[in-house]
């Protein structure tokens, strides 16, 4: 599975950044081999639309799942329409730890109520 994690740094020891649109790095990780590609989030300082821009980036990389904190409504809508699953990390943990929890089915999948 190819997953992307919003992260505070550029390697697996970095922590999960629980902000999706405003995180400094995205780590694209193969959950089996743990091969990792780090991409700078150039939308982190965008005046608006950081969430949608990041969702676009993630979709172009054809990931199966996102691991982040609470994803905002616009980004959520894009990821939902593209069929990308979102898994929520609620504690301050490393990316490596988050991937382990993901593999053990210990992460909650994000559902948003549509108003």
């Amino acid at each position, binding site marked *: 599975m190819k997953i992307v994690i919003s992260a505070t740094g550029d390697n697996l020891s970095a922590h999960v950044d629980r902000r999706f649109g405003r995180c400094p790095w995205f780590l694209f990780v193969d959950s089996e081999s743990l091969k990792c590609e780090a991409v700078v989030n150039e939308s982190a300082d965008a005046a*608006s*639309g950081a*969430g*949608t*821009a990041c*969702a*676009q980036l993630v*979709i172009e990389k054809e990931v199966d799942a996102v691991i982040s904190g609470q994803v905002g409504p*616009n980004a959520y809508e894009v990821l939902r329409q593209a069929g990308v699953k979102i898994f929520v990390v609620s504690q301050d943990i490393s990316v490596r730890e988050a991937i382990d929890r993901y593999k053990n089915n210990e992460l909650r999948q994000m559902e948003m109520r549509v108003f």
Partner: protein
Amino acid sequence: MIISVASGKGGTGKTTIATSLALCWKEGLFLDCDVEEPNAHIFLKPHIHERISVGIPVPEVDESKCSFCGKCAEVCEFNAIVVIKKKVLFFPELCHGCGGCSYICPEKAIKEVEREIGVVERGRSGKIDFIHGILNVGEPMAPPLIRQVKRHINSGTNAIIDASPGTSCPVVEAVKRSDFCLLVTEPTPFGLNDLKLAVEMLRKLTIPCGVVINCADIGDEKVQKYCKDEDIPILMTIPWDRRIAEAYSKGIILIDALPEFKNRFSQLYGKIERLYKR
């Protein structure tokens, strides 16, 4: 002459000053450009005779013509368009209506349609032509509506513009191209901090300014000192007075409630005029 009334900090008395100043004129235009929370109508009580819907152009995508190349998403400065495999997602509240997406679309699959963001109302209050904008609730973008309010300024007419507080885009849009900006502040650390921000904004816009200190007998002397150091004229001070607050709470204009202030507002207008002509 176009006079804008602004302040860095909110709740310092912009509308109090702007409405009293307007009454000093024989005739003129009053524009409430605080379109997120217009309140000057509560004081000037205009008779509204015209209501105009204001919209911005937003893209409408014809997916049968679309090749999903993603150029529209790429060009959008505000990330309002996302292209996924066989779908274009549009987020209207992020769109600034620039038209870049329809311009760049190689398939001519995007046309622009109008999306209402608010209304402009015109009316009359005594000798004053009154215009204000009302932004629809939840709408994030005020500047296009403010531009429509300001379209009613004719060259040669006197106009007072009541701006929103702060130094963000709506304020810049409201004060832009005014001949003089009156900055209302209070002599407190918050008042001073935000006054400095407002002065910096006006210097970038090269608009001359003067200061009105409201509730002048509370707080400290630091606003006065700042104005002296920066060579910014203090054009009026208003004391803290419970009667002013009471009149405000009832929607009564300051110089109507306390006629002894009438002269001082005429003088204020005279001072601004002299500074403008200098």
